[in-house]
């Protein structure tokens, strides 16, 4: 029973509440219902209203937003999520965003569910700057729905002025020198993925026995952790974290906010690290896809991309300004580098579906309540 509107849902709920409804057996769908045709509706690349923008916090140079508003006389209404599942839950609720920033595997999941608009790449002036490796990304055939935004690697950020006994292992997360000032990312993929790597399993393993041992590893870490938190910049700049499980670019962002940037270092761990990429995409129910496409074009402009890379600290896979800007950052600190080769050779999070995803969620809950 597809194509059910929110009103039907409300009616269904009311029916049950009034004791009138036997909903059991009748499969009603919530969420944004769309078919392939909805994703292919053409739209012009022109300003068609204010931009409802939905991204991680501190994941774009604020000057870009101000510059876009000024150049085109529109407002960018910014909201933030702190994890991919949190982004998904807002999308499922039917909130109409014009531009979102899903990671590759979540983009694939959204594409499979007909949740992203098809983008006419020919309309993007600077699209030819995008690395050709992204012409046929694994998560989006022909890059029809997404534009690559950044590449990332996950590792450990640490205070070199406090800790001089890093070993190169993920086990450093609970390095005793941190004296209990260690935070793990509050992110089921990064948590379980890291444990899988430490145990020598595939990053995306869904093998029940392997997952069980990865769960044990995480539970054993807990007594020495100060918390689960993805608020990495705040944790490290406030001094509450001396060790923080984080993404490479966060270190640059943190260094830009402290007086002693040389004390904040990044470690890529020997057991292997997750690498991945983020994308720009337009949800199927976007009210202003034209403005969103203008914004994507604006981000791709070499000078804007360069300014963005210097601020967020992540490489953007575009030739020209962005490439040079990141090369400049890497010259100062080679550990933060991520390249297209790393993506090809490294382990990337996959879009877990069905029983596999449920198993990861169950284990993450078990780690949290343990």
């Amino acid at each position, binding site marked *: 029973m597809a194509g059910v509107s929110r009103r039907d849902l409300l009616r269904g709920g009311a029916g049950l509440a009034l004791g009138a409804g036997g909903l059991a057996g009748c*499969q009603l*769908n919530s*969420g944004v219902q769309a078919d392939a045709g909805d994703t292919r509706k053409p739209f012009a690349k022109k300003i068609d209203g204010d931009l409802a923008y939905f991204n991680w916090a501190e994941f774009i140079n604020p000057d870009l937003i101000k510059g876009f508003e000024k150049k085109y006389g529109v407002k960018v209404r910014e909201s933030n999520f702190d994890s991919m599942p949190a982004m998904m839950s807002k999308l499922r609720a039917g909130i109409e965003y014009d531009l979102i920033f899903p990671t590759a595997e979540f983009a694939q999941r959204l594409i499979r*569910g007909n949740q992203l608009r098809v983008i006419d790449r020919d309309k993007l002036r600077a699209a030819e700057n995008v690395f050709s490796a992204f012409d046929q990304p694994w998560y989006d055939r022909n890059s029809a729905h997404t534009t690559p935004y950044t590449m990332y690697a996950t590792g450990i950020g640490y205070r070199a002025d406090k800790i001089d006994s890093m070993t190169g292992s993920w086990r450093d997360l609970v390095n005793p020198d941190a004296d209990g000032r260690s935070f793990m990312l509050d992110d089921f993929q990064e948590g379980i993925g890291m444990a899988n790597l430490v145990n020598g399993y595939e990053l995306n393993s869904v093998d029940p026995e392997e997952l069980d041992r990865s769960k044990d590893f995480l539970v054993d870490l807990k007594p020495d952790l100060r918390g689960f938190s993805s608020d990495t910049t705040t944790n490290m700049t*406030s001094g*509450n974290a001396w060790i923080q499980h984080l993404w490479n670019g966060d270190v640059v962002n943190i260094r830009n906010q402290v007086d002693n940037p040389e004390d904040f270092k990044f470690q890529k761990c020997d057991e292997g690290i997750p690498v991945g990429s983020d994308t720009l995409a337009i949800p199927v129910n976007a009210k202003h896809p034209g403005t969103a496409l203008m914004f994507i074009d604006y981000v791709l402009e070499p000078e804007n991309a360069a300014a963005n890379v210097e601020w967020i600290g992540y490489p953007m896979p575009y030739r020209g300004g962005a490439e040079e800007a990141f090369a400049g950052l890497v010259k100062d600190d080679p550990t933060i580098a991520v390249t297209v080769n790393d993506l090809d050779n490294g382990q990337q999070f996959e879009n877990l579906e069905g029983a596999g995803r449920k198993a990861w969620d169950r284990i993450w809950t078990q780690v949290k309540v343990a």
Partner: protein
Amino acid sequence: MSEQRFASRFLLPGAVWLLLFFLVPLGILLAISFGTTDDLGNSLYGWHPSNYADAFDPLFAPVLLRSVGYAFATVVLCLVIGYPIAYYIARFGGRRKNALIALVVLPFFVNYLVRTYAWVAILGDEGVFNGAANTNIRFLNTPYAVVGGLVYGYLAFMILPIYAALDRMDPALIEAGKDLYGSRWNTFRHVTFPHTFQGVLAGGVLVFLPAVGDFVSAQLLGGPDEYMVGNLIQQQFFAAENWPFGAALTTLMMGFLLIFMVMYLRSAAKASREATA
């Protein structure tokens, strides 16, 4: 217009409000709690009582006990802190009574989440307090910080009903207690406190119910071992993308809290019967 029709017209807005914003969402919650999800995480309605069976996993028992423990500690602390404040305002507030009550309520104009974030900045290792006092105390990510956050968040719910009870009380009763050679403590114990007991009970329930389901305080001020039921439910909705299980946990939690609510309502009804008898 008959009196009855007149009354029913006045009932209508309230009834519509309750239907739209209480019964309908509750119905949706119940419907989802028996559902499952598709690959996008959307809820599919159906008949899956297993969500409820999963909720009784003994794994969750410590989380529930911890939440009840924190909420109980919060009630006790709110009472110890709130009663003297309410007493002072009611008995000695004079012309400034309303202004003082306004001050108690004032922080509520700022979002609870924002206020809790402020505590993160104040109590951090290199935060405002440790900086000003030149100390090195680790406040954050401890059970004390979580309970402290809850007390701070819900204190006004304790102060207001106690204040209302004290304000209603005839001060002559206290004077009578003293006239009969009751010490200050005995007067308080045998006259003032029993007279305001319903206010204390109301405050206790008003603090306990939101505190036991709170997730903000544990999320921002707690560590890995301060996980509460609210965090568990929040995780099902925003991390595990498992709304049906989250809805089942919510439904059970509401049932559990209803026990306290019913106990309170019965006690309040009994007290008001005794008062009019």
